[in-house]
Every structure is written in C-alpha cells, then in structure tokens.
C-alpha cells in the first residue's frame, strides 16, 4: 500500500512537470505552512533554510541554480567573464530591473549590496577573504577582483541563504535590515510575527524569458498572494496536511506519509533531500586522533541507523558517495571505508592500535530532530560493540549550537543538511567551522578544487576531496534521506525542491 502510494506521489510530480505548460490561470491566494517564524527576513543575516525559503520570493541574487544545480543568471545578464588568471570576474547586469519601491537597479546598488554581503553574511565573509575589490565598471557591469582564483564564487553568489541579494544602495548600510525592498516576483505586504507573512505580486517584475529551469529561467507570477504561516508543532502540521487547511505544508515527518495520503492534500516526496552527518571534533579530545575517528567510521552501521531514524527504506538510501547520482559531484571513488552494516572487528583493531584507554566518547545531540537522536542511539550500540565507552549528551537545539563551538565539550555532534549545490558550502570545508578540520592533505585537495574554474575538471577534483574526507574522517555521512511535504490537489506548478518556491505555481480550482 505504502509502495503504491509512494509511486503515485512520485508520478504526481512527474505529471506536474510535464503539465506545467498547460492551463495556468492568474489569480489566487495560497497559504503555506512553515516550520516556524523565521529569525529574520534579511537573507544575508542568516544561514537558516526557513529564511531562504521565504525571502527568495522577495529578494534576488545575481545568479541562481538551474534544475541541474548549475549556476544560471538571474539579475546578471550572463555568466561572468573570468580572466585568464582566474582573478577577475566581470559580471554583466540586466538593465531596467525595478526594486519594489519603484527605483531602478544600477551597478551602484549591486556594488553596495555585495559589499554589505562581504561585511555581514557568513558566506559573504568567506568569499570576502579572497575578494580584493568590487567596482562598478559602468552602469551595467560589475567587476570583482580576487587575490587568488576562487571557483566557488559564482555558487556562493547563487545561494539563497546568507545570500548575496541585491537591495537599493540606500538600504545597504542597514544592519539589521529594516526596509525589505528587493527585486523579486513578490513583495512583502505585511508581517505579523507568529501569525503570517503576507507577500503580494510585484506588478513591475520583469521575468526572464523562456521556460522555468529550476530556480532559474522564467519566474511566472500566477498567484496574487503567498502567505507563509508558522505551524511549529509537527503533529499539528500533520493535522493541517490531512484536513487540507493550507495549500502547501512543508517538512512533515516522513513517517506520516500514509496518514497524509489519506487526507485532503497530496504527499510530495523529495528524494533524496539531504544527508545526516556526524561531525568529528578533530581539534581536542579523543577524536583528535585520526585512528579513533577511523575506528568510529568502521564501527558505525548506517543501514541500521537510517532504518531506526526514518522507519522504512522508502524514505532513505544508504550511500557512501557524499552526493547522490543527480549531482555532477557524484562519485563512489575512495569510499570503501563506508560499510553499510558496520565492521566491528576492523573497528576493534583500529581502536587497539590507537591505544584507546576507555575515555568516554561524547556524542552531542538533541531531540529537536528526532532522527538525530534515533541515529545516535543505534550508533551508541555499535560503538559500544566495538569497545568504545559512549556518553550521550542530549541537549536542546539552542544549547547544541552554542556548545558545539567549544572544542572542550564534545567529540561528535550530529547535524544534517539538504545536499548543498556547491561542495565548498559544506561545513567541514571550512577550517573554522565546529570540527576544526585543518590538515595539509585537506588544504591541498580543497585548494586545487577551489582554484579550478572549469566545471568538468572541478567534478574530478571533488573526487580527491571526497577521498581525503574518507581518509581523515572529519565527518561521517550516514546516508541520503528524503523529505516529505504535502500540497493541495488544486495547487499546480510547484517543483519539489529543498527550498520550495511558489513563483510558477498556480491554482486550478478557485
């Protein structure tokens, strides 16, 4: 039964994308149930997915991602011209683009916005380390100069969280942002915290021509209004999905699939959605020893961990490659150390070699995401079988985000993420993110990867990065998991995506 329903859900998606070109009608208001109230509506100021999901309708970036996760122009008129030495990016801008306040976007706005981005956004600061200048060459061209070649730049400019949004230069000094004026297809009408965020169609929006292509291509404004309503309780989200109170319900627990199938909205499965990761503290404590980390890698049994976490193989897959097949970054090379059912004997040998003295291995996790906790419980059993003493530090999420910044407090912490379109965005690629992985082998692989601008060669270079990850175990990717949402049968044109968007969506019956 579940298999059938899942098949039906997946085919609904296929049907939707085929039919997208037909029968769109203008008009209608949709209510979208989200997981809560966003901490801010300034997408530069936060890396939270929820912030990106809502604000990507209001603000736009120079580039965005197409259906195959390649960068594609949005406010830029084309991909950047990159100089021979890889240090100068010349970006042509679209002209005549209007902000929600009626003013016209110029190169000066873009420069001021990008400077703000390098000043306050987490990802902007990351790029800012190599950016030496952002200048307006003329009214419709911006030039970015770098101290060394940095290939992830275009991907960073495309992402919707800690995003390089373009805002009027006059607002660029605001921190926190107070005027939510962007160029997006929908503009902010009203925000009542914890009640709704109301977006209405921006009539002067200029969509790119052609067909929609992922986040790129045409952005059609069929809907009059989009309202994001926080429904923080997961059981309530299941309830509203079954009752059909909202047109789209984001982030349902996957185990509610059958319950939702029987209700007024249809389940939408995004498979695969992302990875759960065990991050290792390479700086202090037990896991500073790579042999201990390798012992953990051998001991863990992802098949059982994923099954405990997600309930049915319909909702996850066990895969060693960091990226699934749908990404250019996919490769199985160098992943032999990943054992679906674990290798307790190998783990024991590695542990003996490391001279393990019985110090408890501290796993920092929370029950904010129940699947983190369930994975931790199974991991504990396998680690103990291999001879580890395990200490579970189960705290609530805000405490976890604080404690993980202190290397004295943990050995492993559990997190997850949607598949990030650009591997450089992964936490462990940065030397300073919790885990503090910084070795010569890493730097050699990552620097080669970051310096190469040719997409095909970059994919090959990522294989080397993946090999080093398996070799030095700064983190352990458990597998791929799916995401579940629900949508009204009257709502069409929504493409399943890790950060759902509702331009191009339309209602068929009103």
């Amino acid at each position, binding site marked *: 039964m579940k298999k059938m329903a899942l098949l039906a859900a997946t085919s609904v998606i296929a049907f939707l994308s085929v039919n997208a070109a037909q029968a769109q009608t203008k008009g209608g208001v949709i209510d979208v149930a989200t997981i809560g109230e966003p*901490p801010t509506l300034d997408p530069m100021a936060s890396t939270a997915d929820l912030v990106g999901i809502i604000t990507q309708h209001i603000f736009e970036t120079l580039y965005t991602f197409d259906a195959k996760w390649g960068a594609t122009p949005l406010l830029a008129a084309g991909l950047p011209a990159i100089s021979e030495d890889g240090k100068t990016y010349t970006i042509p801008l679209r002209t005549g683009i209007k902000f929600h306040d009626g003013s016209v976007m110029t190169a000066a706005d873009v420069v001021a916005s990008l400077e703000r981005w390098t000043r306050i956004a987490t990802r902007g600061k990351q790029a800012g380390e190599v950016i030496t200048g952002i200048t307006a060459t003329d009214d419709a061209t911006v030039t970015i100069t770098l101290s060394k070649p940095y290939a992830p730049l275009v991907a960073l400019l495309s992402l919707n969280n*800690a995003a390089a949004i373009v805002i009027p230069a006059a607002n660029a000094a605001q921190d926190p942002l107070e005027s939510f004026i962007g160029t997006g297809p929908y503009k902010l009408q009203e925000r009542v915290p914890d009640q709704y965020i109301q977006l209405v169609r921006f009539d002067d929006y200029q969509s790119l021509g052609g067909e929609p292509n992922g986040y790129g291509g045409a952005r059609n404004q069929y809907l009059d209004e989009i309202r994001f309503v926080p429904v923080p309780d997961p059981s309530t989200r299941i*309830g509203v999905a079954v009752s059909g109170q909202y047109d789209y319900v984001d982030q349902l627990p996957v185990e509610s699939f059958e319950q939702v199938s029987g209700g007024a909205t249809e389940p939408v499965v995004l498979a695969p959605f992302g990875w759960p990761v065990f991050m290792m503290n390479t700086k202090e404590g037990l896991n500073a020893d790579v042999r201990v980390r390798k012992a953990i890698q051998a001991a863990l049994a992802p098949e059982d961990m994923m099954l405990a976490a997600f309930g049915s193989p319909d909702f996850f897959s066990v895969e060693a490659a960091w990226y699934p097949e749908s990404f250019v970054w996919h490769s199985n090379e160098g992943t032999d150390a990943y054992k679906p059912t674990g290798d307790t004997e190998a783990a024991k040998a590695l542990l003996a070699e490391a001279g393990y003295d019985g110090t408890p291995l501290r796993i920092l996790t929370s029950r904010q995401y129940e699947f983190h906790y369930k994975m931790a419980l199974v991991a504990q059993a396998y680690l103990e079988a291999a001879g580890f003493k395990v200490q579970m530090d189960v705290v609530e999420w*805000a405490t976890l985000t604080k404690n993980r910044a202190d290397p004295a407090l943990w050995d492993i912490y559990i997190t997850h993420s949607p598949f990030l379109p650009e591997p450089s965005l992964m936490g462990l690629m940065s030397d300073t993110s919790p885990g503090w992985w910084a070795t010569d082998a890493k730097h050699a692989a990552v620097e080669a990867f970051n310096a190469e601008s040719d997409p095909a060669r970059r994919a090959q270079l990522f294989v080397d990065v993946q090999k080093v990850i398996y070799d030095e175990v700064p983190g352990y990717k458990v597998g791929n998991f799916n995401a579940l949402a629900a949508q009204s049968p009257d709502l069409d044109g929504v493409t399943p995506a890790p950060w759902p968007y509702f331009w191009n969506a339309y209602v068929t019956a009103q």
Partner: protein
Amino acid sequence: MVRSALNRILGMLVVMALVVTIVFVIVRVTPGDPAAVMLGPDATPADIESLRERLGLNASIPEQFAVYVGGIMRGDFGQSIFLNMPVTEALLQRTEPTFFLTIFSLLIATLIALPVGILSAYWRGSIFDQAATTLAMFAASIPSFWLGLVLMQVFAVQLGWFDASGYGGPGASFAERMRHLVLPAVTLGLISSALITRFTRASMLDVLNDDYVRTARSKGMSEPRVVVRHALKNALIPILTVIGLTAALLISGAIVTETVYGLPGVGSLIVSAVLRRDYPLIQGALLVVAGLYVLVNFIIDMLYLAIDPRVRY
C-alpha cells in the same frame, strides 16, 4: 481595610523584585546563545562573536543586570532580539488571543464545574457523585497537548468544523479569529474544570452540614433556595480562590495549547522566546505573567475582605 491593602501591596513589591532577579539569573545560566540561533546552522564563531557584541551580550552580568533593572524602573523592558521591537509592544500584540482564550476557558470551566460540583456535594455518594468525581480525576490527569491533539483530530481533521491551526490570515474578522479559539478553549476549559469541580464539591460539603443550613431547612425553605442562597454563598470563598488561580494559571498554562494550535498568543511567544534565547523577551514575558499572578492574588485577597468581614491581613 486600607491598612490591609497597603500591607498586601508592599508584599507584592517584594515578590516582584524577587521575580525580576530570579528570572534574570535563570535566563543567564541557561546554556544557549541567541546569536548562534539567529545566524543559523552554518554561522562561523567569529560571526556569532560580533553579533553578541552588538546585542550587548558580552557585557558583564552585573552590568547587564543594572541596565535591565534601570530599564524596568523606567517602564522599559528592552528590545526583543528577534522581533526587533520593544518587548512591551511584542507582548501587547499577543494579548488578544491569550486574553480571550483565558476568558472562554474560564467560562467553560466554571459553567461545567459549578453545577457539577454543587450537585455532587448535594447527592454525595450517589452514582452521579461517583461518576463526576472519577471524570474530574481523569480530566485533571490529561496532558493538555494530548487533549488538544485529540480534539483537533476529531473536530478539525475528521469533521472539518474548525481550523486546526492559526489565528486567521490578513483581514480576518473578529468572529473568524474567535472561531480559532473554540477548540483551544474547550481543551483548557475541560482540564481546568476538574480542579474547580473538586473544590466546589469539597467546599459545599463543608457548609451543607452546618447548623445554619439545617436551620434554613427547618424553617421550611425550598431546597434550591437552601443550596444556592445559604450554602453556596458561604462556600464561595475557596471556590473563588481556585477560579482566580485557574485564571492566572491559564495565562501561562496556555503555553502548550497555544503552541499546538499555532495561536500567536503570549504562551507561544514565551516558547519561541525560550527556544531562541531571546533574553529580553523571556524576561519581559515572565515578568508580566508573574505580575498577573500577583495581581490576581491581590484581587482575590481584596475580595475576601469584601465578602467576609472577619478576614484581616
């Protein structure tokens, strides 16, 4: 009377000063960091540090306390870190659903509890009494989130009579907004009715055996008149106390119910403030709730004085 009132007010001030201090300390010793929550999962430690600086979280604890107390003296509860608005304004925005939810729940609770409690006492030991006592026991033990989800499942999801979540969209009329309060009010009303029922029954039992009730009966007064005019009037003090305390409890006890039903009230504001470590907002909200408790207690005390001339503080 005036002297008693002044004594009580003095006591209230001491309690509030203690609340201010305790809340401040609890909030600071709880681990977690508003800056880390705000910046999202991929923020770097350097980003978090600079935001902490901007939010004034790097000042010493006594310094922060001085600023905080100084603000309260001037009626300034500070600025919510996440909502980017004054705490008083954030709280005022959320009073409507919480206020009406409290009124409706109390109304439902009282309308159930008073008749049931009185009849239980009157027919002590009867099947009605036993059934009512058992049900009250049962209702008192139900967790509110569970009852909330069950009512939602039946009346919102299955029958579709009400919305399961929210408080209406832009331009929702007052009637529409109140409609969203029906299920949460029934949830809280049913649960609170248990305690009031038990107090009513116990209090009535006490007075029904008193001499003046027997006297009233022997004068040939009708039974309803005996029960309502003579017995209930004298049994009212403890009942009033428990109703008042329930009202205070509902203001904060609605925390779970408001979250389950996605209501933008004071309770859900407290939950999100705690999860985000929005220190000024947690402090302000807890202070208001504690203040209401103290105020309700004060009003009850004053009512005692009015109802029973023998009472002195």
